[in-house]
């Protein structure tokens, strides 16, 4: 335990999330280690996305959403009064379910973050773009088409581009919400390889509906489910190996073995 604490990047303490009067997440306490992939699994509607969006304060965009409890990124209190959500989101990047490049060129997409954060020099932007596109193994494919609209790329490539766009803000944590669900198997494999590779330097959290994916790529797994009052709970959390081989909770076991719809 102490080993994980030392390295841990993200931490929640008695986290509760409400959408207006709807209690969506209840009493979630967990530590997410750095330089590893943590997968959140569970049936649809159990609050996986809601939990993920707690970490970059995406729920701020929903007026009726309210968070109770503590969330920490290292020593920063994510919901602390002095914490600026805009600054926080530069540290906690997010890749969405559907590839969502902006209707602009490949180049402009990748550097949109750095541009906003004040990088103006063309050379600097170009090297950022090359760097990030190389990291997602896209550079060779698109280096001659950087001015092309990103919308013309195939879906799988768009998602790689979106990951590059997130890398360009130099985050410490990357949140991925079912980021492979819109992709074909081959692109999925490429993105999974990318996750594994990125996990060497980033803290990665993924939400996935694919048990196989969780088993393949993640180091830690969190199983969530709604309780009798339809409130999202963290049922079991541990190393992926343990969750998938010797789940402690009956519900986890049922879900893993496919006995749950």
């Amino acid at each position, binding site marked *: 335990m102490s080993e994980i604490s030392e390295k841990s990047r993200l931490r929640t303490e008695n986290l509760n999330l409400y959408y207006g009067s709807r209690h969506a997440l209840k009493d979630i306490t967990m530590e997410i280690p750095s330089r590893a992939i943590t997968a959140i699994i569970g049936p649809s509607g159990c609050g996986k996305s809601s939990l993920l969006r707690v970490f970059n304060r*995406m729920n701020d965009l929903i007026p009726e959403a309210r968070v109770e409890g503590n969330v920490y990124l290292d020593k920063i209190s994510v919901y602390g009064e002095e914490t600026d959500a*805009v600054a926080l989101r530069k540290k906690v990047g*997010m890749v969405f379910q559907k590839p*969502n490049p*902006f209707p*602009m*060129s490949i180049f402009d997409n990748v550097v949109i*973050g750095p541009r906003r954060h004040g990088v103006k020099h063309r050379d600097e932007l170009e090297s950022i773009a090359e760097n990030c596109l190389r990291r997602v193994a896209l550079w060779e494919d698109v280096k*001659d088409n950087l001015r092309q609209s990103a919308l013309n790329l195939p879906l799988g490539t768009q998602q790689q581009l979106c990951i590059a766009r997130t890398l360009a*803000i130099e985050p410490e944590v990357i949140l991925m919400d079912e980021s492979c669900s819109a992709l074909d198997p081959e692109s999925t494999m490429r993105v999974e390889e990318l996750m594994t590779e990125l996990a060497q330097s980033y803290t990665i959290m993924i939400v996935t509906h694919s048990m196989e994916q969780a088993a393949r790529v993640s180091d830690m797994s969190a199983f969530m489910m709604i309780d009798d009052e339809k409130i999202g709970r963290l049922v079991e959390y541990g190393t992926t190996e343990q969750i998938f081989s010797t789940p402690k909770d009956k519900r986890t076991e049922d879900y893993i073995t496919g006995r749950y719809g």
Partner: protein
Amino acid sequence: MKLSAKSSEKIAKSIIWAAAMLVVAVLAAIVIYILAKGLPTLSWSFLTEIPEGGGAAGGIASPIVGTVLVTAVAVLIATPLGVGTAVYLAEYTKGGAITKIIRFSAESLAGIPSIVYGLFGFIFFVMYLGLGWSILSGGLTLAIMILPTIIRTSEEAIRGVPGSYRETSFSLGATKWQTIYKVVFPAAIQGITNGIILSVGRSVAETAALVLTAGSSLRMPTSLFAPTRTMAVHFYTLAMEDISPANAFGTAALLIILIFIINVGANILLNRFISNKGKKKEAKGGKRN
């Protein structure tokens, strides 16, 4: 007697088709009639000479200049105000009392006949602010008149931008204003521009609101404080006072051509602007092959 679904479908289709054709025919008839009567008058000297004898002779150079200036003042003032209001309505309010008041005001403004704008402009700009009959008074009056159109079309365009763009932008550490400016605006630009073009057309064609505010001077305006007579007002005067039917139709023909050019030209510009982003990419991407 009972019609089969198929034949009633056919009848409905033909009625709708006939209605559409009727609209086209009426439009074509008006345009052809005016062009036939007016085109013979249109000449280089008609376009470049100042009217003489109250428009009985000479050209319409000063009304052309007046039209351009009044329209420019109106659009340059109404666009930032209207787009700003639209951004506020679409991005910053959550349906509170202020939103309702703004929207109610904008909708009410849209339903007011233009002569009432003219009267207001006369009382407020011409008399109270002492701007007199002038391009400025006319332009300001038109600005208020076209404001609702610009607000509504811009708001619709901004609301039409997918929420995922905003969400993504925020997730990349953008502030709200950066998101609006760099992501929402570019995506909404086409709708916003359409509203502005529509407003230019209305300004060019307006008479009632201008008679009372811009005046009816036929002299070439020398400043924004000078009175002027726009082409539409000029046409109205020539026709109503039976000064010169030929020149009236010449002016009307030019108005129609102008509005046509504005619409088509703006569309071409817009398409070029949009596909230019695509063209550049092809030019550069093409190097590869």
